């Protein structure tokens, strides 16, 4: 299922109070890939993804979602079918939990889209397994769970609908490192299962680790739409102009490149980067000792550049 955004404008309000948010967007969401949408707060990312399942209709232009065409004139009743095909996980999705038990909450989506109770239950159980919650959770109240577990239930609520395309808005926000790691794995698994994923993220490490393609939004317009490698090969100054961070690996690589190191490709992981660095470093004699020497002579390194508060 292909999603095509063709010449879309979107504005809140009308007349003098009109606030334009999206301006003439041309975009195709490639199938079976992870497309990351990045951009500083207020650049229009969230408004853009809400066009993908017709939560917002374009003010001008049209959005083609598989068989469905959405314009400003499309009737509300025609939109429900679209939402069965494009799932949406909002930021802090645990805020949408409402049912007395976990299983009922997860079954809510499938039932709304016309599944038989038996099938909805099966879909819910499968989705809960996918997010790592076993049968002991089914009959618990979602409100008695920890924050991380509530997040999983909310994710399962969308997974159970089994949409072909899934949109995630900052899915890892507020999770601890282990929780983030698990979430990244879930997104990778979904891609491997043939799903199309759209990911909004502020965390460039996630974008680098996951995305096939990246769309950069700036002031309601598409500032870049290219592969993740092409994007991060852009100069640092470009990212500064977009108020975007670089992934730490990339930032480090660029920093060393500025100091004269030569790299033949963009490093996506610390290991990859280390390999390229090691080739160019002349570790002084007694390699191991030199490398670990400071372990025993901590005082050798000045720490003054960390600011005046660090006094020992």
């Amino acid at each position, binding site marked *: 299922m292909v999603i095509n955004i063709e010449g879309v404008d979107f504005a809140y309000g009308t007349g003098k109070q009109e606030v334009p948010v999206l301006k003439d967007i041309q975009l195709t969401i490639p199938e079976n890939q992870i497309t990351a949408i990045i951009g500083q707060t207020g650049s229009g990312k969230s408004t853009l993804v809400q066009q993908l399942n017709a939560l917002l209709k374009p003010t001008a232009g049209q959005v083609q979602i598989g068989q469905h065409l959405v314009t400003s004139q499309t009737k509300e009743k025609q939109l429900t079918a679209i939402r069965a095909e494009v799932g949406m996980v909002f930021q802090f999705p645990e805020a949408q939990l409402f049912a007395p038990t976990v299983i009922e909450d997860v079954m809510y989506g499938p039932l709304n889209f016309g599944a038989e109770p038996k099938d909805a239950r099966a879909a819910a159980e499968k989705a809960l397994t996918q997010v790592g919650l076993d049968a002991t959770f089914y009959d618990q109240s979602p409100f008695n769970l920890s924050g*991380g577990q509530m997040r999983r239930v909310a994710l399962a609520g969308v997974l159970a609908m089994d949409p072909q395309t899934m949109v995630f808005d900052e899915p890892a926000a507020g999770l601890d490192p282990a929780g983030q790691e698990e979430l990244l794995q879930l997104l990778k698994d979904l891609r491997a299962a043939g799903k199309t994923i759209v990911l909004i993220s502020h965390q460039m490490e996630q974008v680098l680790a996951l995305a096939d393609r990246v769309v950069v939004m700036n002031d309601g317009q598409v500032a870049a739409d290219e592969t993740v490698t092409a994007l991060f090969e852009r100069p640092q100054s470009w990212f500064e102009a977009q108020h975007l961070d670089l992934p730490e690996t990339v*930032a480090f690589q660029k*920093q*060393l490149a500025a100091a004269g190191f030569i790299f033949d490709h963009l490093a996506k992981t*610390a290991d990859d980067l280390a390999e390229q660095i090691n080739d160019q470093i002349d570790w002084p004699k007694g390699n191991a000792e030199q490398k670990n020497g*400071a372990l025993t002579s*901590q005082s*050798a390194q000045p720490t003054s550049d960390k600011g005046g*508060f660090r006094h020992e």
Partner: protein
Amino acid sequence: MTDAITIKKLTYAYPDQEALFKDFNLSVAVGEWLAIVGHNGSGKSTLAKLILGLLDFDEGQVTVFGQVLSEQSLSAIRRQVGMVFQNPDNQFVGATVADDVAFGLENHQLPSIEMPAKIERALKQVGMADFADREPHTLSGGQKQRVAMASVLALEPKVIILDEATAMLDPEGKQALLQNLKELKARYQDELTLIMITHDMEEAAMADRVAVIDDGRLVFDEKPETLFLKGDRLRALGLAQPFAMDLQKSLGIMNPSYLTTQELATWLSTLKA
């Protein structure tokens, strides 16, 4: 010298649950910058609430600048310890930025005439002086957190606890708040004790000392320089280590002198063939 905060043999359990803390001990020196880290649900935020008497512990003792926490000493202790919470929206009491900073001053019954100067000073310290008349829904999350910081600063506390204060912010908002913390610590030096509760290792690296908590137990309590050499142990606890340490591991080195990418890059540049 008395510590800023001493926790002795603390025991606490949420109603109908197993004890989260059992005989827990921790002390924070005056002027120290302490990071308390742990995965979600490790009990680190509960600890902050116990120190400020927002939750009542079952056994043990909390002492703040020599004063034992009790029902009688609670107000006096809260005058010395300020706290910034996680959710920027849920701690904004006033209708405007200035009103929010004023809220604590009003509680402390400061004469009205002295308030404007204090409010302006506090807002200046967090770079929000130009926003005094703004309403909360016109501010970004990061700006709201800086207002929360100003509201605490206006009360001139000796200790500030930040309970995952950056967790809900975008990178820009987070960096601005962290930069602000550095400046404040540099300005007040030993007059300000900072306790930062977080699971972000970049933040933990800013501290003088890091306490790692796992299911209510103190697992590590040491300087970031030595803590971050324990990458595998940290991962097992659901935590990460700063990127500079990740990269060092990949490079086959372990040098605690280079905790930040800046330090590491500078050092590597000197070794370039």
